[in-house]
């Protein structure tokens, strides 16, 4: 589904990503972790072309992301993405947040888009809030709406960029629960997150990044059982102290 | 197509330079007076004495809601008569430059006062409390603690306002006083070369103001880098 092949990226002389290579198969859940500044967020943004990269290839569902001829908007409309800071549109009601892209990008009619939005809102447990504005919801609620907004587009896969790291601790679980459910239904997911509990529960593989490189790319059991690199061991030790 | 003829400019340069001196004189005097009077207005507005605050607010709001052109008309048409009758001046005394300077100074101080007020308010309240705790009076706290901090942050804004003021001095053209723009217009009118002289004046203003605003921008960057530490 997603194939990342020797991707490198630099800002001026600063190397952000170095020769990153990995694959995500259909139905797989991949967790990407690593210390801050390790390039994991940049890597996931490269997957739907939000960040350009200088060399290597990324193929999503047979389409090359780096190819200048690729219609990126069309590709992005099929890849769901959830952001660290939710990024709901503050000037629109929840309903409009859910339906605007369905109408303007997919060309669905208004009723169809609204019905779909409501259905997914119900699924994340927020149907009662349909007419509110994002600023009136808690962080956890906003992030669940953001997940629903991405799902409205019937994505072929979902990208999560630190979806819980801007949340107060008591709200993290409500978001993770939605993500776990999604994983169990067979959604292809690539998640940048530090939530190792989530990784243990549903991940197929764990990728560990440091200084722009993929240091470990292993099955969940191998990663948690016996990480091969010293850096990954230190990282896990630190995470567990929290 | 229009036939350009720039030949009347070189000979007129000394006259234009005299005009520029008048523009600069008005600018500098209005900036100095504006900052001083503007600071006093800002302090009055923030002072705990209500009538002072009301006076300052009324002054600032009045001047900020009427056009500079209108203020200058007052000062060109009416104030000279007042001055003459008050000081028993000879009716032929030329008070236009003085009137212009006073008009600009009073007008600009309203704008300066707002910049300075925002600057003062940007200094954390704890600073005044700390100064009072040390036994300082309100005036001392302002002069020794608040204003020095406020001015540092305000300098770029004050300078930008000075550039705007310099551009606005061209409006003394209305009083037939030969500032830089008035001089350029007179030369162009005399030689039938208004097109060239107006374009020349525009170019001169542009280069001065553009260069000045670039300097301000650079200064601001330095200031920001300094504050970031």
């Amino acid at each position: 589904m997603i194939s990342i092949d020797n991707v490198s990226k630099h800002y001026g002389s600063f190397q952000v990503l170095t020769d990153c290579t990995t694959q995500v198969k259909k139905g797989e859940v991949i967790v990407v972790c690593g210390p801050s500044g390790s390039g994991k967020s940049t890597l996931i943004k490269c997957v739907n072309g939000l960040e350009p990269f200088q060399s290597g290839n990324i193929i999503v569902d047979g389409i090359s992301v780096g190819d200048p001829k690729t219609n990126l908007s069309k590709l992005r409309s099929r890849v769901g993405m959830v952001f660290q800071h939710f990024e709901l549109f503050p000037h629109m009601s929840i309903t409009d947040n859910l339906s605007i892209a369905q109408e303007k990008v997919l060309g669905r009619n208004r009723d169809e888009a609204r019905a779909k939005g409501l259905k997914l809102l119900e699924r994340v447990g927020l149907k009662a809030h349909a007419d509110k504005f994002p600023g009136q919801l808690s962080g956890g609620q906003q992030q669940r709406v953001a997940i629903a907004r991405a799902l409205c587009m019937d994505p072929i896969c979902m990208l999560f960029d630190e979806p819980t790291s801007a949340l107060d601790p008591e709200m993290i679980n409500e978001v993770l629960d939605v993500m776990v459910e999604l994983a169990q239904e067979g959604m292809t997911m690539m998640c940048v997150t530090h939530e190792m509990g989530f990784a243990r529960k549903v991940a197929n593989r764990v990728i560990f990044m440091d200084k722009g490189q993929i240091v470990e790319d292993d099955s969940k059991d191998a990663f948690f059982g016996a990480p091969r690199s010293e850096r990954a061991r230190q990282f896990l030790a630190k995470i567990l102290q929290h | 197509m229009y036939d350009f003829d720039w030949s009347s400019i070189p000979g007129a340069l000394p006259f234009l330079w005299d005009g520029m001196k008048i523009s600069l004189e008005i600018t500098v005097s209005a900036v100095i007076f504006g900052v001083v009077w503007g600071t006093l207005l800002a302090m009055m507005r923030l002072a705990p004495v209500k009538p002072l605050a009301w006076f300052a607010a009324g002054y600032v709001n009045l001047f900020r809601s009427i056009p500079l052109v209108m203020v200058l008309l007052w000062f060109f048409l009416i104030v000279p008569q007042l001055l003459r009758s008050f000081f028993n001046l000879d009716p032929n005394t030329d008070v236009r430059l003085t009137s212009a300077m006073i008009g600009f100074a009073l007008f600009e101080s309203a704008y300066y006062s707002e910049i300075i007020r925002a600057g003062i308010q940007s200094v954390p309240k704890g600073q005044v409390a700390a100064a009072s705790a040390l036994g300082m009076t309100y005036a001392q706290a302002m002069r020794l603690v608040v204003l020095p901090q406020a001015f540092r942050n305000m300098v770029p804004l004050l300078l930008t306002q000075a550039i705007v003021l310099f551009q606005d001095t061209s409006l003394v053209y209305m009083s037939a006083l030969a500032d830089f723009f008035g001089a350029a217009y007179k030369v162009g009118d005399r030689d039938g070369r208004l097109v060239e002289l107006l374009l020349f004046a525009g170019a001169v203003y542009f280069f001065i103001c553009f260069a000045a605003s670039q300097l301000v921008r650079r200064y601001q960057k330095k200031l920001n880098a300094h504050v970031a530490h």
Partner: protein
Amino acid sequence: MNYQWNWGIFLSPAASGDSTYLGWMLSGLQTTVLLSLSAWAIALALGSLMGVLRTVPNKWLSGIASAYVEIFRNIPLLVQLFIWYFVLPELLPASLGDAFKQKLDPVTQQFVSAMVCLGFFTSARVCEQVRSGINSLPRGQKNAGLALGFTLPQTYRHVLLPMAFRLVVPPLTSEFLNIFKNSAVCSTIGLLELAAQGRQLVDYTAQPYESFIAVTLLYVLINVVVMTLMRHLENKTRVPGYLGGK
């Protein structure tokens, strides 16, 4: 000093015969309002376009927009006005320039020059406000729009601009007020707007105080009306749960 106050002067018939001096004043007010509103329409349209261009990821487009801003910001309004009114008609191709000078009556010539001049002058300021509005939005908003499959223009249209415009209502209010004040500069090319009518009244009636006080008060009135309207707009466009909204 013994000045003879005479507020009744406004009701006496004006020198033109067909109106009172109050009528002159009101026609000046009308010109000021019409001029300012039409120039504001130009400023808002051009300024928004340039403001958007200053933020797009294309060096050429943003460079053009920033040159535009520098030019209109660093030349005095009076000089710009004279260039629009006296210089531009000379530089246009002969047929167009002559059409402007001969076919249009002087009042229309003055009005058009003044409107275009004020519009362009103010657009540079609107541009800077719109740009800073867009830049003050979280970077993730643009990414979120793009990630949903919006094109860049769609992202601006549906995501960035609606929020940016709400954020810049207060600074745009002050630009809107400025355009009324700056319109007084247009009296210098002979346009009979409010300030010019006040001046004319002084010449005709020899009652300078009454006419200047009246004109000054009318400008204050314009200010109050505009501020009230804009505050209303600000309240109306307030986003619930965001920036002081409920």
